[in-house]
């Protein structure tokens, strides 16, 4: 479903991503692990042509990604839930979620708010609250609901567990697994929390200073005990 070949990304003169190769199958879930500054968020933004300048080849489904602007790529079925959530504070939760429906593909109607609540029951009681009235965990759930309403084929979650209480992280993990099962959706999760990433994905890519230094299953990752010390411990 997603093929990335020799992807390089730049912010001005700074070379951030170095020759990234990545594959993601339909319905598969992968994690991008790495320290702060490893290039995880830049990779997701590069996929959406959101900020960095890119070189290399990217393909999503039958579509080659070259010059399409961000909103066009989003309408192909690629949805990003960014690290800082960016809930619109002066809109209600229902209206925040509704804004995500602009990304709906022509051939597929978006979910209704009720269907989104079925997938994310925690959002139900929040629908009439304003964005500024939400806790961090609630904001994360709403951001995921907003990213989900257009029925994306690929849901990208940028550090979803960051800053959340452990009990909320557990709930979030269950939620992401429920979303994975619904309609066989592909998911990319960037994380520093290894346990969370392990619970929500099938395999992983490990990034360090903009390069992939390991890719494989979680079993293979566990067999290389030094990977954590070398690339994830601060």
């Amino acid at each position: 479903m997603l093929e990335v070949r020799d992807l390089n990304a730049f912010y001005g003169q700074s070379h951030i991503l170095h020759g990234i190769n990545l594959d993601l199958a339909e319905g598969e879930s992968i994690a991008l692990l790495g320290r702060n500054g490893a290039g995880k968020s830049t990779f997701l933004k590069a996929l959406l042509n959101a900020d960095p300048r890119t070189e290399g080849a990217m393909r999503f489904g039958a579509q080659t990604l070259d010059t399409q602007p961000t909103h066009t790529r989003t309408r192909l079925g690629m949805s990003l839930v960014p690290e800082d959530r960016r809930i619109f504070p002066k809109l209600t939760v229902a209206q925040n979620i509704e804004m995500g429906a602009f990304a709906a593909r022509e051939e597929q109607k978006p979910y209704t708010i009720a269907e989104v609540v079925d997938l994310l029951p925690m959002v139900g009681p929040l629908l009439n609250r304003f964005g500024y009235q939400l806790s961090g965990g609630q904001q994360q759930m709403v951001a995921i609901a907003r990213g989900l309403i257009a029925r994306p084929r690929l849901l990208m979650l940028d550090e979803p567990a960051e800053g959340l209480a452990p009990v909320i992280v557990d709930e979030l993990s269950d939620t992401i697994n429920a979303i994975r099962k619904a309609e066989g959706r592909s998911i990319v999760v960037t994380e520093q929390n290894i346990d969370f990433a392990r619970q929500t994905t099938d395999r992983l890519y490990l990034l360090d200073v903009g390069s992939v230094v390991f890719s494989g299953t979680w079993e293979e990752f566990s067999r290389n005990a030094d990977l954590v010390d070398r690339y994830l411990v601060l």
Partner: protein
Amino acid sequence: MSITRIKPQHFAGVMALLIVAGFLLPHVANRGIVFLGGVVAINMVFGIAFNIAFQKAGILSFGNAMFFATGAYATGYMITQVPQIPFLLMIALSGLAGALLALITGLLALRRSSGVYFAVITLAVGELIHVLITKMDFLGRNDGMVGVFRPTLDFAVFQIDLSQGDSYYYFIILSCAVLISILWVLWSNRFGRALQTVKSDPMRADFLGTDINRKRLQALVLSGAATALAGALFAPWAQIVTPDLAHWSQSTMPLLFALLGGTAFFFGPVVGAVLFSVLEYNTRTLVGISDLMVGGLLLAVVLAVPGGVLGLLKSVIARKPAKSLVRKEKNP
């Protein structure tokens, strides 16, 4: 309901009050005040049309006078040169002319600039339009267009002669009420909320599939069309159309209305237009210092009350219950 939206029943209540006040005015005031009342109603549309682009989509235009003048000149030209065109069609065509000018301005400038840079471009385009008007014979050059009479509305089975009595004044009140209602729907619905997201977080809106350039262009075209419709109503009311309508200083008017009333509120420019007219009317005899007083007062309000008069009222109302609660706690 978004935080900037007014409940439909509140909107209907305010509109009913405005319409009743508008309809009562000719019965209690002289013709000069009635003329001013018509201008205020038109200015309300002028201000809201500006504010929907400014507050909702974050587009600061210093060229809205060119849209107003486009509507006024288009209607003035049609009334004086091709009077056989039905008046309502003239108004619609004038609105379309404003929309077209806004579309061209937006296509030229909106993708390449934003914020102050866009404002400066609109100022330059506005001045270009102003100069062009003064050079064109068929628009009356510097003298403008005179003899813009108030036409007759022909509905086949009956006719309304807008030149008789206060007919055209009532026509302005009703037309402005319709325009304000349409703008309120667009301010409050999903389109309005999408504009709000484009202003508050364009990158996030882009991630959500919103074509932010298109939304900004739509907001500018809407603003241009509504402003031109206000200009179209103004031409037969003043019965003369002059190049001053396109002067850059006219572009500051809707901004002042919005700032004075409160840009965050749909009815902010309405309050601002009323207050501004009251100020201007009451200082009109102070030759030489009238503009200074109006400008000084506006500056004071804007600096002292950044949220405008409605913002001040809102904060006062928000404080009151808190104080009464404190009293109750002290004296249970």
